């Protein structure tokens, strides 16, 4: 168990493609860090650099007190769980778990003890003699985890380990990974493009975009105070509504309608306003003052009931900007119907229209 430190790590591929552009993260001992972002954001490259499977162009990675830039993957004291499990198809489950330990010339009895212990924790004891192809997806996933556990490494690295599982199993394994990690207390770095997985697993989230860190923080902080429009639209489902706002000497005004007023305190001509779908309520009539919140008038396009709740997909008559609103289950709204919506001031986010950066009010 140990800390992991990334100090302005860069990765440039042949042909001047800069996949990671100077990333620094301090990961505490025992912490569960999730790297999240869309495909191509550099999250997998970053993980593979920590594992030693990719060279580091510049910068420094340390595991514990040791700089590992030049250290072979096998000697970094890490274990990795791959997306497609990467189990050795010709070896039994037992040998899959034991292979790495055998290569370190570990004592046979100790290998056996560790394998049995991991099998017990993961409840795969009955399958130790089987080949991977005789296992179900979830069982293979457990074996892949087991191969990481037996190493008793300083850190676990997970590369989208759940993306090959079906939805139900994914939830189940997610819970299990979290329980396991807390139980073992091993520092973990987990890569995913699934924001829900990221939210539920992470002690701290690292949101990546185009090789840069957009935001680091506890999941709920990232949700409450997204640092940029990118984070705002990436974390949370359905995504936060982003509306255009004009600013001039008379104050602020929505491009789509009139339900916003207030002084142009930051002196810019354009802003982006963010409201989450779950932070609006349907009201009889607009309050009108605009001072203490935002009033919107939209036209309903589609009502989508998902059971526990329903979503209205609507648009603004003036500009055609689209909006998603969460409403109560069993609501009945007709397409074409006009609705008045209200959001409270604490739920309204402002971003710089040009840079996308959050503006604290």
């Amino acid at each position, binding site marked *: 168990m140990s800390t992991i430190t990334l100090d302005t790590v860069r990765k440039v591929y042949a042909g001047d493609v800069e996949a990671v552009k100077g990333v620094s993260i301090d990961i505490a001992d025992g912490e569960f860090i999730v790297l999240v972002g869309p495909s191509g954001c550099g999250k997998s490259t970053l993980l593979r650099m920590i594992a030693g499977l990719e060279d580091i162009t510049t910068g420094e990675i340390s595991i514990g007190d040791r700089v590992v830039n030049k250290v*072979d*993957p096998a000697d970094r004291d890490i274990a990795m769980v*791959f997306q497609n499990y*990467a189990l*050795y*198809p010709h070896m039994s489950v037992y040998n899959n778990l034991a*292979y790495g330990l055998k*290569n370190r010339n570990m004592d046979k009895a100790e290998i056996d003890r560790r394998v049995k212990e991991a099998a017990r924790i993961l409840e795969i004891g009955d399958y130790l003699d089987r080949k991977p192809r005789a296992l179900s997806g979830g069982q293979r996933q457990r074996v892949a985890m087991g*191969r990481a556990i037996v190493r008793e490494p300083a850190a676990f690295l997970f590369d989208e380990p759940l993306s090959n599982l079906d939805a139900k199993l994914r939830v189940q394994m997610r819970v299990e990974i979290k329980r396991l990690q807390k139980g073992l207390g091993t520092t973990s770095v987990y890569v995913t493009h699934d924001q829900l997985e990221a939210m539920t697993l992470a002690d701290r989230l690292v949101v990546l975009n185009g090789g840069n860190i957009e935001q680091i923080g506890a999941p709920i902080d990232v949700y409450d105070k997204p640092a940029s429009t990118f984070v705002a639209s990436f974390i949370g489902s359905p995504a936060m509504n982003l509306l255009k706002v004009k600013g001039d000497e008379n104050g602020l005004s929505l491009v789509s309608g009139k339900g916003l007023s207030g002084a142009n305190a930051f002196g810019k001509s354009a802003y982006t306003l963010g409201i989450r779908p779950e932070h609006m309520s349907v009201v009889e009539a607009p309050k009108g003052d605009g001072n203490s919140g935002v009033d919107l008038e939209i036209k309903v396009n589609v009502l989508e009931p998902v059971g526990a709740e329903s979503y209205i997909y609507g648009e603004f008559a003036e500009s055609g900007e689209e909006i998603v609103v969460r409403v109560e289950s069993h609501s009945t709204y007709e397409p074409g119907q006009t609705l008045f919506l209200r959001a409270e001031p604490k739920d309204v986010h402002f971003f710089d229209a040009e840079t996308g950066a959050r503006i604290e009010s």
Partner: protein
Amino acid sequence: MKRLQIWDHVILLSGVFFMVAPVVLAFITSTHDAVTIYRSGLQFGFGDQGLQAYEDVLFRAGGFTKEVNGLVMLKNSLILGLGFAIGKIVISMLAAYAIVYFRFPMATFCFWIIFSTLLLPLEVRILPSYEIVQQLGMVNTYQGLIVPLIASATGTFFFRQFFMSVPDELTEAARIDGAGPWKFFIDILVPLSKTMMAAIFIIMFVYGWNQYLWPTLITTDESFFTLVRGIKQILQVWVGAQIPDYDQIMAMAILAMLPPVIVVVIFQSWFVKGLVESDK
């Protein structure tokens, strides 16, 4: 629908007849004695000689050859088929492993050198190849018979294709598990290639066994003759003969085809897989 199926079967049965009848006819005729065959042509019913012709061909020297019998030729055919197949698999797996899994300066150059051999079949460069083997003193040796045939890169090409399809994650997992290049090759790659090795073994065994032109040139000493090479001897005797030993000619043909046919039929699924995937 039903009538259509009947026609399908008629066409397929004609195809089967076209493929099978000549060999069956040859086998049936080989149970008659040469004079009967000479007088009344190929036979459609079994004769009274049984497998006498096979016994003659296998155990008696001096039919078509002066010193060796069919058994020796059978042994030589096996040596050629097995030696060629095993040699080819070992050499081409090593080469393909280097080409696919290592980054080194001369990689592209080596790749093209090896794959240029796919451009020129042995038949085209037969004369200079013969002269070089002669200069190296390898005429009438098993090495001279086998090694030059291995020069073509078909096997390397095949294993390269296969190695490329092995997931990268497996290599990465092995590296994290502390396996170096040799360990990875022996512990992971070779066991993974088992089916492919079996498939290519069958194809190469058949290819080696069936060689004709090269053994004809390289082996002049009868003790190195293969069964297929022996056919050349048959022809030379045939041309001068009053009544050719038809029964023994046919027995020889059947014997020469039997082992590779058995291998192909028994290991049909592997062989088809190998053939279709390797020639892609």
